[in-house]
């Protein structure tokens, strides 16, 4: 099996029967790939070169393909942002433990909902799915946090957002794809649902867990709205809240900020660009490790019938 998988990873044509059409196809795909890279990389490349260029040239649109009068002043300024390291640590904390909480709640519920035996299964599924289209809005949710005494607590961030229905459905669909013969066999051996879940289904679901885990991690890492409004202590705030503040500041405070001339080394804009780069780095480091789990496959599908 494994060599077949490998062959498939090498591009879909297994053995060496290469027609001209096949080669042309590969070349076209490769060209599309390169174009895609350009389209996606350019804006990011732009952020990088803008973050090291002199701000006046960034503002007047001269920075396009290469940095102008490169300097690292913006990074130095970015690193001086108050609470930067604390918030970086907080972001790591919320992402790491948040994903654990997410996975604990989502996998159990998804597994239960994936079993046709479950009583009121349709009702419970609908209950979850319904929230994707109907949500209460900001103020009622805030009042809920208040009533539970969760304002300004890390617990609010970790447990207030246990399940993303979308991700839970992905997991549920995956569990549904696992051949039921495995479950039946385990039942005959007298295994409980808990054991089947933890010892058969979870180990089998690594790709799904990796994908959904990644989704959760991204959401956790990028989230700013609720952390900003629920947390009032500066020591608990994550990185994105800081970043957001700088971004919004840019529009609000620019009326009174310093004048930019050709001599200025950094401006709020370039500092923001520097911070964006700093904030993306952890995700770029983590992503390739998760990518390898995709190889073994994941199918989310819908209920048959």
């Amino acid at each position, binding site marked *: 099996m494994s060599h077949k998988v490998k062959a498939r990873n090498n591009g879909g044509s297994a053995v060496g029967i290469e027609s001209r059409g096949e080669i042309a196809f590969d070349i076209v795909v490769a060209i599309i790939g390169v174009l895609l890279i350009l389209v996606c990389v350019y804006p990011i490349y732009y*952020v990088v070169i803008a973050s090291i260029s002199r701000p006046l040239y960034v503002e007047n649109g001269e920075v396009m393909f290469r940095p102008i009068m490169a300097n690292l002043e913006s990074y130095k300024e970015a690193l001086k942002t108050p609470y930067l390291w604390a918030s970086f640590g907080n972001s790591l904390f919320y992402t790491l433990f948040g994903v654990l909480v997410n996975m604990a709640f989502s996998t159990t519920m998804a597994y239960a909902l994936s079993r046709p035996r479950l009583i009121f299964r349709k009702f419970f599924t609908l209950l979850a799915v319904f929230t994707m*289209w109907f949500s209460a809005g900001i103020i009622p949710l805030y009042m809920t946090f208040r009533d539970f005494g969760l304002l300004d607590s890390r617990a609010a961030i970790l447990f207030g957002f246990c399940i993303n229905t979308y991700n839970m459905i992905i997991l549920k669909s995956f569990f549904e794809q696992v051949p039921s013969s495995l479950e039946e066999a385990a039942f005959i051996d007298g295994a409980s649902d808990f054991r089947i879940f933890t010892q058969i289904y979870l180990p089998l679901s690594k790709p799904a867990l990796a994908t959904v885990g990644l989704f959760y991690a991204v959401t956790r890492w990028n989230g700013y709205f609720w952390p900003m409004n629920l947390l009032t202590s500066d020591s608990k705030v994550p990185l994105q809240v800081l970043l957001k503040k700088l971004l919004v500041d840019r529009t609000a405070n620019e009326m009174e900020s310093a004048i930019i001339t050709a001599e200025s080394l950094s401006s709020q804009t370039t500092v923001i660009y520097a911070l964006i780069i700093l904030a993306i780095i952890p995700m770029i480091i983590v992503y390739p490790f998760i990518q390898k789990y995709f190889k073994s496959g994941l199918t989310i599908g*819908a209920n048959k019938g």
Partner: protein
Amino acid sequence: MGLSRSRSLKKRFIGSWQLLILLLPGLIWYILFCYRPMIGLRMAFYDYNVFRGFEGSTFVGLDNFKTYVMGPDFFRTIKNTLFIALWQMLICFPAPILLAIIITEMRFNVLKKIVQTVTFIPYFISAVVVCGMVVNFLSPSTGIINKFIELFGGEATYFMVYPQYFRPVYTLMTLWQTAGFNAIVYIAALMGIDPQLYEAALVDGAGRFQRIWHITLPGIIPTIVTMFIMNIGKMVKVGYESILLLYQPSTYSTADVISTYSFRMGIQNGDYGIATAAGLFEAIIALILVVAANKVSKRLTESALW
């Protein structure tokens, strides 16, 4: 009849009590953090005052809905919401599928890895920054897009202020930001297709396109259906943040959607009743589309989300 039904219920309950325990933490969470706050939706029926709460606010029945529906912005916001959803459906939804297929079909491993990683990164750049870049890149005097247009003999266009460009600009921006990220699910699904199917096809002499058409696509149809039903609601609930950053008074005619209206009424004017009423309208549209999509998909592909 009733007796046997209740007996079978009891039996099913006993048969699934362990599952119910697994379900419980998630269920409790849904009730506490999704359904309990939902009671706040009754704001739509009050002249709601944040400080006084429901007890201190006047019940106004359907007045808020009336104000929205009879108001001059009603048809325009509905129309724009649906149009933007349509653009998203036609362009932003299929793109990740295509991207996933391209990535899996790619033969050069290094290129493949780079494409996959690079297309995923835009998702990390916050909407405020992306919108700022869009405005920069589209500037008629200094923007790179217009530089290119001029290079090829075209005329620089002030894209941000003409209503006919708003939907394409917004759609392309969303596409750029989300395609790589959304492709992940499809990439993972494509990897799950049984390689034996491809080998059999190869033996039958099927070309690449034929294999994609007859094996790859059918293999991920259930994924596509699920994603479509789940996303259709999201598409209708156009995020107001990016639109607020991109629109101009002159582009209201194509850009003003229910959520921006609701934002103006709620956060800017403090009129929570109307804002919630408009929001409910949006949710109902989403719900109708979702139920319809689910029905259609059940009939056509025999699979559905519920």
